[in-house]
């Protein structure tokens, strides 16, 4: 009895915390459904009076459609390529300790701790030199490179949990360094791939800084486009909020559908037997 009552007590702070984090989401949604006249600070918590209207979403979509497309074109290769590179790095660092590995691994991780603002100017001039400035591929390249530290770390830690006998058995069976990776490790790397793909998808999708610095209007991803949708004189908050929701939707969907794998992958040293 006592145990189950304390169980319920546990839910109270959890539910409160969840509500707290959902508040901005709520405001974003209700505002998105309101008409322009209805939007003001005094009534921001109220539900839409004139019923649910999708006009704002339609308009936001009209404005954002090309940049949503750009975001997908940018995020998918960025996530996939940095995951693949991370898994290769992680494999080598975890299982084929070479001379200097203990120096190289921290150096790779160091990349995570560099504030992005500090490298913006050299980054832009570098992209100009290699002719990728302003384009989606340039942004992809940037996200791939800045993804490598975290993807490498995740895969290295995962592969470190794989018993070395498994690789030795494969060596005796006749597999070399590449085939051990492709035939033995990659097929059991799904949990890490899910973690890393979600992570990279989300961080590249939500990125504003690199996008605004590196892309021209025709290559804008949705974050930049959303920012620029706001007029210079009047901001149509209802359309803006609807657009924000559209911009946030893909990462939400990814998390809702793959979130379980994400948690499981984060927990996993898993995979026994």
């Amino acid at each position, binding site marked *: 009895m006592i145990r189950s009552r304390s169980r319920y007590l546990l839910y109270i702070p959890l539910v409160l915390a969840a509500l707290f984090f959902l508040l901005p989401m709520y405001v974003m949604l209700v505002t998105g459904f309101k008409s322009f006249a209805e939007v003001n600070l005094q009534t921001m918590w109220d539900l839409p009076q004139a019923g649910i209207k999708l006009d704002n979403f339609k308009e936001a979509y009209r404005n954002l459609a090309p940049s949503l497309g750009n975001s997908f074109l940018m995020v998918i290769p960025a996530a996939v390529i940095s995951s693949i590179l991370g898994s290769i790095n992680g494999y080598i660092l975890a299982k084929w300790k070479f001379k200097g590995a203990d120096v190289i691994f921290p150096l790779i991780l160091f990349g995570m701790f560099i504030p992005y603002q500090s490298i913006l100017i050299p980054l832009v001039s570098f992209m100009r030199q290699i002719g990728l400035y302003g384009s989606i591929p340039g942004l992809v390249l940037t996200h791939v490179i800045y993804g490598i530290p975290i993807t490498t770390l995740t895969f290295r830690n995962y592969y470190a949990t794989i*018993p070395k*006998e*498994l690789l*030795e*058995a*494969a*060596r*005796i*069976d*006749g*597999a070399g360094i590449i*085939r051990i990776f492709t*035939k*033995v490790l990659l*097929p*059991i790397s799904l949990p890490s791939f899910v973690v890393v793909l979600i992570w990279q998808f989300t961080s590249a999708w939500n990125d504003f800084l690199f996008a605004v610095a590196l892309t021209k209007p025709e290559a804008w991803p949705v974050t930049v486009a959303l920012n620029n949708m706001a007029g210079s004189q009047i901001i149509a908050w209802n359309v803006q909020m609807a657009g924000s929701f559209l911009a946030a939707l893909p990462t939400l969907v990814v998390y809702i559908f793959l979130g379980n794998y994400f948690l499981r992958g984060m927990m996993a040293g898993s*995979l*026994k*037997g």
Partner: protein
Amino acid sequence: MASVSYNHVSKRFGDFSALKDLNIGIEDKEFLVLVGPSGCGKTTALRCLAGLEEVTSGEVMIGDVVVNDVAPKDRDIAMVFQSYALYPHMTVYDNMAFGLKLRKLPKEEIKTRVENAAKILGIEQLLKRRPRELSGGQRQRVALGRAIVREPKVFLFDEPLSNLDAKLRVQTRAEISKLHQRLQTTFIYVTHDQTEAMTMASRIAVMNKGVLQQLDTPQNLYDFPANMFVAGFIGSPAMNFFQARLVKEGTYLFLDTGDMKVKIPESRAKIYMPLAGRDVIFGIRPENIHNPQFAPPGIHAEIVKTKVDVVELMGFEILLYLVSGNTTFVARVDPRTRFAMGDNVELVFDMDHFHIFDPGSDPENPVAVR
């Protein structure tokens, strides 16, 4: 099928010497067991043969070929790991076929070999399962199967039974022996369990601290251990050791521990005569100490007075833990013996089966005198 030899093999890990000048010749079709306590170098020796470790110096040979610089896959060996190391994402069939596919064998050939091995091991009905759906014993069989299908020159086993429960271990032990009979291939088997070594091996190499202590048949190791380490390692319960002095009285030679004094039979006395007056280690196995009532006839029995500390009934025998002055020892006596804790009793030592070790030879590990 091939012979294997270690010629002056040493292996260092930084400052640690895992193998020191190891010399072992293993004949074709032999079942050699490497045995010793953990850290003795037995697994390192096996891994050097597999090619998973490089030797620091010396030669490892398979057949007539020095394999020091040959990759594991080209050594024509197969290995069964302690953890089985099955590929978790592959079915049992694919686990067994993996090595053959990498070697580009024709599909029908692979199928025949896998099915044959599965039949030998009784796992035909498991071929479509994945390792996580199998019990420990079944996984173990798959690991064996993966080795069998390769038809290697040499099979290597690294403590393959230590993850099984006691009953299954005994059963699998017999099956591995049968497998050796059937395959007629060289088996090299690493274990820390002397019972496993004694029951399966055609010869045993006992190792300690990276050094080969003795290489012989199980019976010879038991009867004629070369030094105190081997004497104490082979046999369970272990051999009893007493600090003793060899005392010459008239033409007789006695072993005097201070608490007890036993006469050495004349036939063996002359061997030890040169050591008369010296301190030695006297060793006798628990099974060579008897209750006088049930002692086998015709042995050179020497009576010893002692006190029973603990009695362990085993059913087919009784283990007596005994105290004599400062020394404790164990006797394995007839189950009809009726002794109780605290009894002062008389037992007999069978002086046809005892061992003398000379601390003067090597104080750390005295060598047997014979």
